[in-house]
């Protein structure tokens, strides 16, 4: 074994306005080995990888590759230094061929025209190295997900890299495709390539990695040979101290069902999802990104299509089966994409607040009562403490927290019995997060039924009365409100591997 690390990152520091993302991270990786990079959301994994990829520049620190100090000013620098990325989201152009996709940034040319022969020859070489059976002339849209992943890897290999980063490569793969990916990674290791492997699935790193580095809060909190760790120890390192957080609210949960869904299914996305949401309850839908958590709530209110399943709502005291479009009238929805799906950015605070509630503001002639609209808007601006110079202010100019309060306020004006909140505090600062959480508590105390989705485990633990664990489009477990961090993390990661074997 070579004692000198091939990649050596020391004291990497990076801060963004208001956030210290990296506080002196260390990372060492050896040639011919796979290094697992672990960490919860916000631990600094992405920032660190963006530093290595030349996408952002660190404020301080040193990067050595093969004992030579390097400066990475741009993605081009990273490529020149033998670093390649295999991205989580597949950045392929579906209507173009495999060869074209692989060469999209650097077509070989002759006399100003693309040299197809050279391009295909290069592709064939790399594809055979990966053991791929398809031709470089195949259009990407005709390939399976696993094969597309191979095209991504082939593209990364074109530059003959000595370091390859895999970011969540298995999140959309079947178990057979995953096995093939692991074979490829093993082959790359034998060729002496340094692999950095990022994943949420703890069982995977024990299959494919030799070493592990764990980040938490922008610091390296653990590193070493994987054989010295148990999965539980890694989870503990990721989430820190295991004290159960003080729950912020008194449960007002009732046993009166407000919403019951049965067998929600959409081919390849949702698999037989059933649950009941009670009045006064804050229910957490806990799962990783891409687990189907957002798709579940979206399909209930008709934003996403549904193949089968029934939705029952409490209307006038009795549960009644409704269609998604009707369910939408009774459910306040806060989506994870505030700017894209929440707000009319150029329009005023007042207009944004009244958007869902206009039907209640009509005169007999069918016109909107502007005075009532303004009064109501002012009422919610005061109640939610929305900082805006006046009601005519375009929402675009407000801070993120105030924008989010406008989205929440829109639904409070309508006052529906059920709320779905998908990442309600994403991107907000600590103070704004707390304000949004308080609003959620108040809603539950007024007997609204609230379903919350969040990637932040602390937030889920502070809010929820009960958890449903979702993975690969299936509800795999139900946990009580007093479940520990450890149980939750294990449920999301452990259940993940069960789901895959199934």
């Amino acid at each position: 074994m070579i004692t000198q690390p091939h990649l050596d990152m020391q004291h990497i520091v990076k801060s963004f306005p208001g956030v210290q993302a990296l506080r002196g991270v260390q990372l060492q990786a050896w040639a011919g080995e796979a290094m697992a990079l672990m960490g919860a959301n916000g631990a600094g994994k992405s920032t660190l990888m963006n530093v290595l990829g030349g996408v952002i520049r660190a404020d301080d620190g040193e990067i050595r590759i093969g004992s030579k100090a390097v400066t990475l000013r741009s993605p081009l620098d990273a490529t020149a230094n033998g670093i390649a990325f295999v991205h989580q989201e597949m950045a392929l152009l579906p209507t173009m061929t495999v060869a074209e996709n692989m060469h999209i940034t650097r077509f070989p040319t002759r006399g100003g025209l693309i040299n197809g022969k050279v391009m295909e020859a290069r592709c064939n070489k790399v594809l055979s190295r990966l053991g791929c059976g398809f031709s470089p002339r195949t259009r990407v849209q005709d390939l399976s997900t696993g094969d597309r992943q191979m095209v991504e890897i082939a593209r990364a290999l074109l530059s003959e890299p000595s370091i390859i980063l895999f970011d969540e490569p298995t999140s959309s793969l079947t178990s057979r495709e995953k096995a093939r990916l692991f074979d490829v990674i093993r082959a790359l290791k034998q060729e002496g390539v340094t692999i950095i492997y990022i994943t949420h699935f703890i069982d995977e790193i024990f299959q494919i990695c030799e070493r592990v580095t764990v980040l938490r809060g922008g610091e390296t909190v653990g590193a070493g040979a994987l054989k010295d760790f148990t999965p539980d120890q890694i989870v503990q390192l990721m989430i820190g101290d295991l004290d159960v957080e003080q729950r912020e609210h008194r449960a007002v949960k009732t046993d009166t069902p407000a919403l019951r869904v049965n067998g929600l299914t959409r081919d390849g996305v949702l698999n037989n999802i059933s649950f009941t949401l009670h009045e006064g309850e804050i229910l957490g839908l806990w799962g990783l990104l891409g687990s189907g958590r957002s798709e579940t709530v979206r399909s209930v209110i008709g934003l996403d299509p549904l193949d089968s399943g029934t939705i029952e709502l409490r209307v006038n005291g009795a549960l009644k089966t409704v269609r998604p479009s009707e369910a939408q009238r009774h459910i306040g929805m806060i989506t994870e994409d505030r700017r894209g799906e929440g707000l009319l950015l150029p329009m005023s605070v007042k207009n944004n607040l009244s958007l869902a509630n206009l039907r209640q503001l009509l005169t007999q002639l069918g016109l909107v009562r502007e005075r009532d609209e303004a009064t109501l808007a002012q009422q919610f601006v005061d109640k939610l403490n929305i900082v805006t110079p006046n009601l005519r202010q375009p929402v675009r100019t407000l801070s993120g927290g105030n924008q989010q309060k406008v989205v929440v306020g829109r639904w409070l004006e309508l006052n529906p019995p059920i709320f779905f909140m998908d990442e309600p505090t994403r991107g907000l600062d600590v103070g704004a997060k707390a304000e949004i959480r308080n609003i959620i508590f108040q809603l539950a105390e007024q007997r609204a039924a609230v379903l919350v989705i969040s990637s932040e485990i602390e937030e889920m633990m502070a809010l929820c009365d009960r958890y449903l664990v979702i993975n690969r489009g299936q509800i795999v477990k139900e946990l009580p409100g007093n479940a520990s961090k450890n149980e939750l993390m294990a449920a999301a990661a452990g259940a993940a591997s069960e789901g895959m074997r199934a």
Partner: protein
Amino acid sequence: MTTEKLTGYSAAPPRKAHDATQGEALSSRLIRAIPIVVLVIVAIFLVFGVPNFFTQRNITNVLVQAAPLAIMAIGMTFVMITGGIDLSIPSIMAFSAIMGNLAVRDLGVHWSVGCIVMLIAALLLGFINGYAVAYLKMIPFVVTLAMMTVVTGASVWITNSVSLAAMPEAFFDVVLYRLQLIEGIPIPVIIPFTLLVAIIAIVVIRGSIFGRWLYAVGTNVRAARVSGIPTQRVIFSTYLISGLCAGIAAIILAARLGSASANMGPDGMVLDIVSSVVVGGVSIYGGVGGPLGAVFGALIIQIIGNSLNLLEVSYYTTLIIKGFVIVAFVAFDSLGRRRGNG
């Protein structure tokens, strides 16, 4: 969490940012205002440079000429606020005028039934446009371009390119009726009627829930959908409205021209409608503007056309000038948008 802490957090609003963005919004509004100012100046220059412009006769003439354009521009405004476009308005107008005349000539119906036929024909074609765009999710540009071609073709085919003058005198007497409100100055009833259409459109767009939904859909259709707005129905309705406006314009123009023909809605008329709407401050990107602006725009376009005509500038030169006007307005709109960041 105490309230003290909460207010502590929110007591520090980014004041400077507000001021800066307000400044930006102002400069964006100024940029958008530049072409309108230029155009008004040009119009005034033409008006004073043109002999006989200020005769009472010519003014009335310009207003009557502008009426069908203004009504079609109002219809287009509804479509464009949601971010769509309807290129088929003039062709639908010509087609339904022909249908109305045919009904009177071949079926022997009363002229008022002929008018209703015009409205229904236009509504039906608008229905097809709206259904294709809203429910089949086809691109408005393509749908209405195809509609324009098909309907124009049908008009030529049905009429053999011959004008139809089937309407009886009574039709012209009613539609072209002149009110004698002020002694010695007859006002064609078309003018107050167009004003009425404009007022209804303004009230619907500014005051009704449908109006709010239009802007919401044009500004961010996804957010509109999440907020429970029936976005497909809203988009569908806009094409019905533009169809209806084409039908109303058909009645007026058929009366003014004395006949209906395939070329009463030439290609250049689409250009005039789009110019009117964008000159009136409706954004081609959706979400901005209103019918008042569109009527104002129609008036300006008509004045420029009329004046160039009186100055004996050729039709083709006029087309070139109008084309430049549209490009300039869209460019300024785009620039203002970039400044205003939305």
